């Protein structure tokens, strides 16, 4: 059995990669991808911490729940991106500055 720390390291690595993708990538779709990565890192944490209480499967079920929410979120996010692209012929958030003074 792998010790808990390894999962946590991997999860922290994934989270950090997701965060860096969100901050650095210009395209909205890539930002959504980063968000997925970060969600997956948190799922990994949930599953890993479940081994402290093996009699229940709380962590696994909770991560399943997160995956479903993430799917919904990805669907909403992508449709928003599609809609924005349709309106403004771009999917880069920095260029959507119509409300700026």
């Amino acid at each position, binding site marked *: 059995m792998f010790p808990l720390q390894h999962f946590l390291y991997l999860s922290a690595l994934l989270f950090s990669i997701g*965060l860096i993708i*969100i*901050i*650095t990538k210009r395209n909205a779709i890539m*930002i959504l991808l980063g968000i997925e990565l970060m969600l997956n890192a948190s799922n990994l944490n949930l599953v890993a911490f479940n081994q402290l209480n093996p009699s229940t499967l709380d962590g696994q079920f909770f991560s399943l729940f997160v995956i479903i929410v993430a799917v919904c979120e990805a669907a909403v996010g992508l449709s928003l991106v599609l809609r924005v692209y349709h309106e403004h012929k771009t999917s880069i*958030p*920095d260029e959507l*500055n119509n*409300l*700026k003074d």
Partner: protein
Amino acid sequence: MVEVQSHQSTTVELFLLVALLLPLLSFFISFSISEKYSWVVPFITTLLLLTSVVSSVYVFFSVWKHEPVVVQLHWFTIGNFKFNVGILVNNLSAIMLIVVTGISFLVHLYSSGYMAADTSIRRYFAMLGFFTFSMLGIVVADNLLLIFIFWELVGFSSYMLIGHWKEKIEASAAASKAFLINRIGDAGFLIGLMIVWANQSSFNLIELTNTTEILSWQTSASLCIFCGVIGKSAQFPLLNWLPDAMEGPTPVSALIHAATMVAAGVFLLARIHFMFTPPALDVVIIVGGITAFMGALGALVQHDIKKILAYSTTSQLGLMVMAVGVGAPEAAILHLFTHAFFKAGLFLAAGSIIHSLHQAQHKTHDHFDVQDVRNLGGLRKKLPFTFIIFILCGSALAGLPFFTGFLSKDAILTAIQQWIGSEFSWKWFMLAIAFIVSFITVLYTLRMIWSVFMGEEKRTSTLPIAEPPLVMRIPLAILGFASLWFVVCSNPFDYSGWLYSGLHAGKYFHSSFMPIVSAVWVVLALVVGYILRKKSIQSSLLLHNFYLDRIYNALMVKPTLHLTSFTNYLDKKWIDGFIHSTVYTQVILAHFTNWFDRVIIDGSVDGVAGLAKGVGSVTRSFQNGKIQLYLFWAIFSIIIFLIWLII
């Protein structure tokens, strides 16, 4: 608040108002008639004046030797003090009413012939009416303030009438001169009024008469009012305007500058005679004596026929003022009455000579100065009617027996002779002056008549001269008739006829000696005048009236001009300089405050604003609309927070 005594007196008041207001109505009518119908103006105004004369005659017969008519109206109230104005018509006013309306009517009638060709005939008749109204106002007013107001109106209408031919430069200059010199006298009059008010708090003549005891302020007050008389009646030293005033139309000279306006001063003296104290009366008689003497000498050497008459008027007014000065205002008024008629007659006769010669000149285009007696002579054949009038009125002026002038001059001489007393003093000089003046009067009258009517014709021999029209001859005839003795009394050697007894309340003194002396004196003067008739006196000093104009020019006008140029210099140099320096100081100060405002005050405000702006732009840069940057900063701050938490 009209005090009505009885039915009788209300009728008198009504007629008095009619007599007073018709000339004013004539003034308004003359101005309101259009230029096209200006030929009706003489008719209407003359008719109005005739009505006024009739009313005056009615008033005269109601008042003469009866109770005076007194009407008082409330004018205004100051605090508790009520100021009343009104009318006081006693014997003196009644006789003046007759003189003013009568002469004014005759002058209106005469002017309708004399001024027929004039283009501004409406203005002329309007001002004649206005003058008559103002003069009547002086005569009937019961109040010194009211008298002063009308006094000024008279001066104004005199100004308008002297300057009637305003296109003549001499006429407008003479009008201004007359007005300004009258102003000098009127300033004294006004001060006198103030003194009276300060001491008595009343201008009412009746109330003032009731203060019988002689008070010290009365001397100064009466002398100040006498200043007004000096101006209006052309007395020394303000007599130089009257000869110049002859630039006006001749009927105006007859009405204003011989019969009425200049006599207003004498009338006022008689009206307020009770106010004059003995020292003031001494001043009055000395001024009158000097004027009489200067005027007589002036009349002796003048060449202009109207100026001879003007100087003669001055001289006769001097005699009247002397009579008031010796305490015989009734003698002065008697002379005023007779003088008004014969001097108006002389002026109108002179006017008819001028008129006839102008008409003749107009036909022949031969132009010379018709007023200069040196150009005239031998006119008795061509103008016999005017000649007769001249003889009648001139005899009255010279004081020949059987003429009115003899009687009134006799009254004045008697009054002066009574006044001098038995002991020899300076007063004897006044009697001597009166006699010398009456002597010179004969001389200049004879000289004037002789040079105009006797001898050979000079410049006029070729002119087709005709007598003036009937409207001008009727007034002349009336005035010539009024120069005969029976107009004032029945006895040609005793002046105390109906007129004198009406004016003089107490017993009068009459010496049978004085008429004889006077008659002999006049005959002597006639003889001397006949001998000297061809001689003419060449005296530049007298011709220019003792250089009074030049003296005033040198003493008053020039220093005033120098003073004005000096004050002008002061103004320019010092006052303007001071103002300029303060202005420059202010401008410099303003520049400094501007700089202070801009740099310090605006700077501090701008600095605060700039600081806020800087801070704002720094904080604003965090919120530049880039989502990822927001995220970066959020995570960055969380990391900082975590580091702080761990440490």
